């Protein structure tokens, strides 16, 4: 199935219909790879347990970033492949698309990574991710009870995020 899963044989996911059925999953990582936040709205398939899933996602993003930094056709000096880079250094990426989902990615200067998985036909979500980051700043980073580097448990953030994500098309 791995190699023969061509796009014409596999069923493509149902097109986004009503509002709120567009986003599948959201992840948030800090720069150490700790999963600060994980939320799923629509995820019929789970192949791994949550810890492994988070680790694999962080690993994928890390490696894709070093790949894009190395592949960048516009800069001459790209350093070595796989050398860790600071947030904002080197050529990064903002999304990738497969036949079943689209993953949008944003990294803040402090190394907070926000990942939103949506339907493959979703448009550019860079502004949406910036808005989600501003929600994080407003309701999590400014929360005096929040301990940086620990998983986010904040009702206000959850409700506002749910509300906003439902509006993404």
């Amino acid at each position, binding site marked *: 199935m*791995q*190699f*023969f*899963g*061509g*796009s014409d044989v*596999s*069923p*493509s*996911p149902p097109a986004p219909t009503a509002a709120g059925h567009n986003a*599948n*999953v959201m992840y948030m990582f800090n720069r150490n790879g700790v999963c600060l936040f994980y939320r*799923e709205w*629509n*995820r*019929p*398939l789970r*192949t*791994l347990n949550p810890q492994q*899933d988070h680790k*694999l*996602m962080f*690993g*994928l993003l890390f*490696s*894709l970033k*070093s*790949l*894009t930094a*190395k*592949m*960048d*056709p*516009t*800069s*001459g*000096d*790209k350093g070595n*492949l*796989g050398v860790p880079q600071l947030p904002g250094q080197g*050529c*990064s*990426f*903002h*999304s*990738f*698309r*497969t*036949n*079943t*989902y689209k*993953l949008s990615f944003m990294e803040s200067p402090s190394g907070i990574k926000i990942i939103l*998985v949506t339907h493959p036909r979703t448009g550019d979500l860079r502004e949406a991710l910036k808005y989600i980051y501003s929600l994080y700043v407003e309701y999590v980073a400014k929360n005096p009870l929040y301990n940086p580097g620990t998983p986010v448990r904040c009702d206000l953030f959850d409700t506002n995020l749910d509300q906003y994500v439902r509006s993404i098309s």
Partner: protein
Amino acid sequence: MAAICSLFIINKSGGLIFYKDYGSAGRMDTNDSLRVASLWHSMHAISQQLSPTVGCSGIELLEADTFDLHCFQSLTGTKFFVVCEPGALHMEALLKVIYELYTDYVLKNPFYEMEMPIRCELFDLNLSQAVQKDRVALLGR
């Protein structure tokens, strides 16, 4: 003038069998291109594992800050991917054309050994014509 920055072809086990650069700044050396190719092979496989729904067949398009990467996987697991400018059009069609050239001039070449690096003059020749900018623009019709 080529419509793409570079083209990679990797076999089903992630080994680079063809790499051609069409004038990007700081061309990659042989080692780096091999490593990038096998890294892409693994990222492609991992992206299938992380799919929220069934039937995922890997990354088709990666949008980076300064380039787009379009990937096409054939039924036998050979992956073709091109690096092009952000928002370049007709890349899926171009990948299909390159796949056709591969089947015609590489697979049908009696001296070609499967999964080994591609050294076929006719393939090189036809490829350099297929990636010309004006040719690629016509693919949209």
